[in-house]
């Protein structure tokens, strides 16, 4: 079977499952619409920024929450940034965990915050993995001489 057709199908299935399982939402489509000839790598670039930024924030959160006297204002600021960036790329599940995270922060509930940190790390690693697979499939498709429609 034609390699291009096979890859297109794999890509379409993988993308569909990302939306279906709630990893990504409509906002991700917005990113794809912003990609064009003048901005050909926009999605990969922004998502890479998101990876870098999130990893930094997750480290900062872990550090902040293990202090003797937790600075909840700092934790809150990091959670804000994580929610802001995840919602901007459409990483719906990561964004979702930030909501209870912020509430625990306001209550200065250390245990709650730590639980949320674990959860958000988990969701982040899942979506990172799936997005990396997405980009790999796109690369393979282009290398095989095919192209993919932007949604």
């Amino acid at each position, binding site marked *: 079977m034609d390699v291009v057709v096979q890859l297109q199908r794999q890509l379409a299935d993988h993308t569909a499952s990302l939306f279906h399982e709630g990893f990504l*939402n*409509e*906002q991700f489509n*917005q*990113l794809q*619409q*912003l990609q*064009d*000839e003048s*901005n050909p790598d*926009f999605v990969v*670039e*922004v998502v890479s*920024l*998101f990876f*870098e*930024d999130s990893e930094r924030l997750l480290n900062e959160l872990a550090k902040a929450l293990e202090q003797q006297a937790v600075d909840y204002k700092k934790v809150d*600021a990091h*959670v*804000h*940034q*994580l*929610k*802001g*960036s995840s*919602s*901007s*790329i459409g990483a719906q599940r990561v964004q979702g965990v*930030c909501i209870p995270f*912020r509430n625990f922060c306001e209550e200065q509930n250390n245990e709650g915050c730590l639980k949320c940190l674990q959860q958000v790390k988990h969701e982040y690693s899942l979506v990172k993995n799936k997005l990396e697979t997405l980009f790999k499939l796109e690369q393979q498709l282009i290398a095989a001489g095919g192209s993919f*429609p*932007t949604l």
Partner: protein
Amino acid sequence: MGAEVDHVSLMGMSGGSAEGNDRSEGQRFSCKNKLTALVVDNGAVCRAIQTALLRSYGVETEAVETGEAAVQLIASGATFNLIIIEMLLPVLNGPETARQIRAMGAQSKILGISAFFDERHQQEFLAAGADRFIEKPLSPEIVIPIIWELDN
């Protein structure tokens, strides 16, 4: 987010011209006049996305990381039709930045923005002279009517 919006009708808001951005499907809304915007956000992801979104509608957009940089830019004489300011900027926060920009006589439309919609933050921003406070992400549904208003 998660609002069910008919993107076709939003895209149909343009004057039907073929200039601006070429999309594989139909036309994208583009402003008629030269509009300028400033994005003030300490997060790289949000800065990149908000800037790209505004530029895709033909708005000449700059981005800075801090409130101080924004204030400096305007103090140096730069003017913008639209300024979008993140709430939780370090040092000079969003509302304080808005306040200083207004104090310099800037007539720009100022949008306060943040990851969480918070009434206290909204009040702070509006009291400081912002026109509106919205929750991220900056979406076409929010931004197109604002651009359209500024354009007409």
